[in-house]
C-alpha cells in the first residue's frame, strides 16, 4: 500500500509491503526493513527500522495520526492511495470555509472581530476561559469573518460553533 504523509510542509510517499513476517518500506530510492508489533491494547506499538527501535504511541484519526515518539509529539497527515484518489476528484475547489469551535466547555471572555473583518493568519478571534486560563483562539489561515455565533460572557459547550470564516 502507498501512503502519502505530510508534516511541517514536507511531503513523503512510503510504499509498505508485507513479505511473510517481514515488512518493507520504500521512500524514493531508500528501503527500510520494518518490524512492527502492537503492544497491549493497540494504541502503542514497537517499531524496528533496520534494527533501530522506536517505542511509538499512536492516536489514529481519519486524516491525521498523532504520534508520541522520540520525546516529541508529531501530528502527521496520512492518506493511503485510495483516499488520495478520492480527494483528487473532490478537490480543485478554491478557498474553503473555516469553522472555529470550542475545544472545551468554557466562557467567552472576548470576541475580537466583527462580521466582515478580513483577518490575517494567527489573528486572535475569540478569547475563551477554561481551566483558570484565558485562551486566545486564532485564525489558522487568512480569511473574512462571515458569521459570529457567540457573545462575550456566554458559557459555551465543547464543540460549540463560535465563528465562521471564508
Amino acid at each position, binding site marked *: 500500500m502507498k501512503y502519502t504523509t505530510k508534516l511541517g510542509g514536507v511531503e513523503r510517499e*512510503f510504499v509498505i509491503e508485507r513479505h511473510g513476517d517481514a515488512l518493507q518500506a520504500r521512500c524514493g530510492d531508500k528501503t527500510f526493513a520494518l518490524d512492527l508489533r502492537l503492544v497491549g491494547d*493497540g494504541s502503542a506499538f514497537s517499531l524496528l527500522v533496520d534494527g533501530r527501535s522506536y517505542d511509538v504511541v499512536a492516536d489514529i484519526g481519519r486524516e491525521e495520526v498523532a504520534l508520541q515518539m522520540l520525546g*516529541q509529539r508529531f501530528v502527521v497527515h496520512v492518506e493511503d492511495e485510495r483516499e488520495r484518489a478520492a480527494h483528487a476528484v473532490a478537490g480543485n475547489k478554491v478557498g474553503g470555509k473555516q469553522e472555529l469551535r470550542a475545544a472545551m466547555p468554557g466562557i467567552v471572555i472576548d470576541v475580537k472581530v466583527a462580521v466582515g473583518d478580513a483577518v490575517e493568519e494567527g489573528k486572535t478571534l475569540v478569547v475563551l476561559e477554561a*481551566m483558570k486560563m484565558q485562551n486566545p483562539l486564532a485564525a489558522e489561515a487568512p480569511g473574512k469573518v462571515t458569521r459570529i455565533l457567540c457573545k462575550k460572557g456566554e458559557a459555551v459547550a465543547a464543540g460549540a460553533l463560535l465563528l465562521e470564516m471564508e
Partner: protein
Amino acid sequence: MPMFRRILIANRGEIALRVIRTAQEMGIETVAVYSDADRAALHVRRATHAVHLGGSKPSESYLDIGKIVAAAKRTGCDALHPGYGFLSENEDLAQACKDAGIEFLGPPPHAITVMGDKVEARKAAAKAGVPLVPGLQEDVDAARLVAAAKQVGYPVMLKAAAGGGGKGIRIVREEKQLVEAFELARAEARSSFGDERIYLEKFVTRPRHVEIQVMADKHGNVVHYGERECSVQRRHQKLVEESPCVALTPELRAQMGKAACDLARSVGYVGAGTVEFLWSEGRFYFMEMNTRLQVEHPVTEMRYGVDLVREQIRVGAGEKLSPVPEPRGHAIEVRVNAEDPDKFFPSLGTLTRINLPGGPGVRLDSAMYRGMEVTPYYDSMLAKLVVHGADRDQAIARCARALRELRIVGVVTSLPVALATLRAPAFAAGDYDTSILESIDRKPTAQHEELAMLAAAAARFLGAERAGAAVESAGAARASAPRWAMVGRADRLRRTGP
C-alpha cells in the same frame, strides 16, 4: 500535645494525595473532600474517609469555607491541611479552624494577612532587613522620582500601582526621558485602571526566580532548606524547577537563607513557607512570601531526604523541628500539564493510556489514573516528575530519560516543552533567566520528522491489517478495534471542505 488522630485535607488532586501519603505513613487517618466531578478521584479513594462537598465549580466545593469546616467537625478531625491553591492562603479559613479548635496546618492568620498584602509584605521585609528592589513607592512626584532614579541607576521602571501581569509598565533608560514618561504613564494608568498612582523601581536585568524553603515550629525555631531555582516559566507559571541554583555562591545562599528565616520570624511564622526572591547580577531582592507548601516542594525533599509534609504535621502538633540534613546532589522537577505544547492551550479529554517512568532517582507525584477525565474545572497539572542525580548533569540526563518514558494518551501535554528545555544549551549551561522559554527552539530535526512520517504510515498499515484481521476474527476485533480506531482529538481550528 499529642499527634493528630485525623486530618481533613481541604484540597484535591496530587497535593491531596501527597498529604494522604505522609499521613498514612504516620498512622494518621485522613478525610478527603470532593466535588461532583471528583467522586472517583484518587484522593477520595486513598483517604480513609471521604465527604462530598457539592458542585464541580470550586465556589461550590473546594472554596466553601463553611462546608469544609463543617465537614472537619462532623468527621471529628483535629487538624486541617489546606494544600496549595484554593483556600491555602485564606486567613478566614485559618481563623475558622482556630475558632473550631482544629489545628490549621499553616501559619497563624496574622502571618497570612500580612504576606497576602503586597504593601504590608514589603514593609515587613524592609523591617526584617530583607533587600527590596530599590526605588520609590510613596509620595511620588516628578522631583522625588528624578532623585530616586539617579540613586538606583538607570534603566528604571515606572509601574502603575493598579497594574499587574505585565500591564502598565514603562522602562526609562535616561534621565531626560523620565519626567515626560512619568506624565504619560500617569495619564495611561488613570484611563486604563482609574488609578493614577505610579511607582519607580530599578530595572532588574536578566532576573532569575530563586526561592528559599523555610519551616518554623511553635517554639520559635526557624530553619531553611536552601533554595529552588524556578526561572523556567510561561505565563508566570513555573514549568521546570531545580535545586541548587547554579547562580548562587555559598555566601549568597547563606544570606538569602538568613533573610528568609528573619522574615518568617518577624511575623511569628509557623509551618512551611517559601520566600521568593529575584536574583540579578549577583544580588537578590524580596518578591513575596507564599504562606503554604509550594507545588515544587519535592525538589527540596529529594535533595535533603526530608518529608516536608511530615514536618508540617509535626510542628502543627507542637513538636520541635527535626534537624536539617545535609543536602545531596541535584534535583529537578518538571510539571506535566494537559496543554498544547505550542500554544499552552488547555487540553481536555479522558486519559486512555498512561506509561509511568521508573528506575533510579525518579519520583512521580500525580493523581492521574487511566480512565480519568481532565475537566475544565480545575488546573491543568497532571503530574510532577522529580529526579535526583549525583550532580546537575546527571539530574538533567535522568530527567530527560524519565520524561521519554512518561507517556500520556487522551490529552495533549507539555512534555515536549520540558524536554526541549532540558536539551537547550542555555539550560545545560545554567545560564538562563525568566525569559528562557521564549528563546527555546523546539523544532524537530528533519531526520526525526522523516521517522515520524514513516511511523505514521506504518501505524496506518498496521491499522488496516488489523481491520482486515478483524473481519476474520470478530472476537479479537471487539477487544481492541474500538480503541485503535479511536478518532484523534480535534483541539484546533479545523478546516472543512477541500
